[in-house]
């Protein structure tokens, strides 16, 4: 495992923001061929010491969600907010903030990647990945 990283500032580790949108930068193990996120130099699933960068799909499905109604320690963003898990076609399940646009969240609902800007509490902002419900099925 990578050593604990220091506070990286404006963009959450694992997120890459490009002109045409954001991407989650995961890894794929050269040995077991499975994906993980964020990328680590060794595979967190099998321990092999070689992984390649893998840009994960921007579309996935919700596998779980809940609403956080009280600001947890160290968090300075708005409450309530949604958090859940999203399954991606690569076979990796990612923990993410969720944005609901269709009136209700559902297991298996289609979502796409976006980003959210949050107050960090020191006057700066953090950009973090979020998955947002698709407008229509």
């Amino acid at each position, binding site marked *: 495992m990578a050593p604990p990283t220091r506070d990286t500032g404006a963009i959450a580790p694992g997120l890459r923001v490009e002109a045409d949108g954001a991407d989650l930068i995961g890894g794929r193990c050269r040995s077991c061929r499975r994906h993980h996120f964020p990328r680590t130099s060794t595979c967190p699933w099998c321990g092999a010491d070689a992984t390649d960068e893998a840009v994960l799909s921007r579309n996935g499905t919700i596998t779980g969600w809940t609403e956080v109604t009280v600001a947890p320690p160290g968090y300075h963003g708005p409450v309530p907010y949604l*958090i859940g898990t999203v399954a991606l076609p690569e076979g990796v399940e990612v*923990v993410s903030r969720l944005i609901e646009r269709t009136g209700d969240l559902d297991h298996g609902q289609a979502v796409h990647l976006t980003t959210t800007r949050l107050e960090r509490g020191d006057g700066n902002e953090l950009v973090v990945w979020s998955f947002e419900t698709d407008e229509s099925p």
Partner: protein
Amino acid sequence: VTTAVQIAGVGIHPFGRFDAGLVDIGGHAVVDALRDADGEGSRRPIDAAYCGTAYGGVATGHRVLAALGLTGCPIVDVEAGCASGAAALMLGTSAVASGQHDRVLVFGVEKMPKGMIRSSFFEPWREQAGLAATPAFFALRAQRFMRDSGVTKHDLARVVVKNRRYGVDNPDAMFRKAVSIDEVLGSRLVCEPLHLWMLCSPNEGAAAVVLERSTGSGITVRATALRSHLPGDVLDESSPLSGIVDAAIEPPTTLAARAAYETAGVDPAELDLVECQDTDAARELLTYEELGLCARGDAVRLIDEGPPVNVSGGLLSKGEPLGASALGQVVELVHQLRGQAGPRQVEGARLGLAHTIGRGANASVVVLAR
């Protein structure tokens, strides 16, 4: 060759909120345990001490024992999240069983801030991103469990009602008032499906145990198993940012339970009582399945038909001082196996199990027998 290990004495400082500091709280439980083992006024030496704590800070065990003039022996401070006390017990038991030491002290102590637990486990950016909200991960796991097992929110409330009812009879518990299903479901929603009263409160307290070579009569430590998580489950207590979709990954509780049952030579059906990690109400029901107390999908039936679970009131009544909670369960089992549990006594209890699961992930299973 290993020697059987017995519990010669137990002590506890009530779980709750106190003006007393960490050292005094820990010292109270240690003195209580030594008095229980040695009788009033005498104090036999201990060969080593193991202290479980997560928030106590550097050399907590030394600080507690220094105040009692009990330093000089090796003192090992152990952090294993919610299983810290059980990890200390595992080390202490191994030391006696192997013949390294004849008589050891194991204790756990904690004095935690109020509210949602803040952990150095998470990097600052994860807190800022809102991705370090512990109750949210409990809630996500609860939802997955409810979907898999058909458990309802009403069932979760029943667990709270059960444990809070037991807690009425435990003078060492923080909450000693019975509650109704409607009150539980009417308490503030923290993270769907978990309401405030379905979540245990981090708090303060201490518990201590004196271990020695078995004389063939006392309460015997039959197993102390500690396991961490296997990789890949996005919702395990290691709170990763990703997992493997649809992977059937054995939870650490099951790994620890299997090891403990094998070491102890017992079948879960033989257990007379169980103390388990009810960090949240769904966690208790999920634990029934993970410990093999019932088949998958059968947890709710066990509320009425299974062995008594969390007759101490559980963490939902006692609160959870992380380093002390696992040993608090052990103290309860010892009282029960000795027949000294008063109004909450499980009649004829001979075999008991204590379980914790938490940050790390760390899962512990302790089996004690009379």
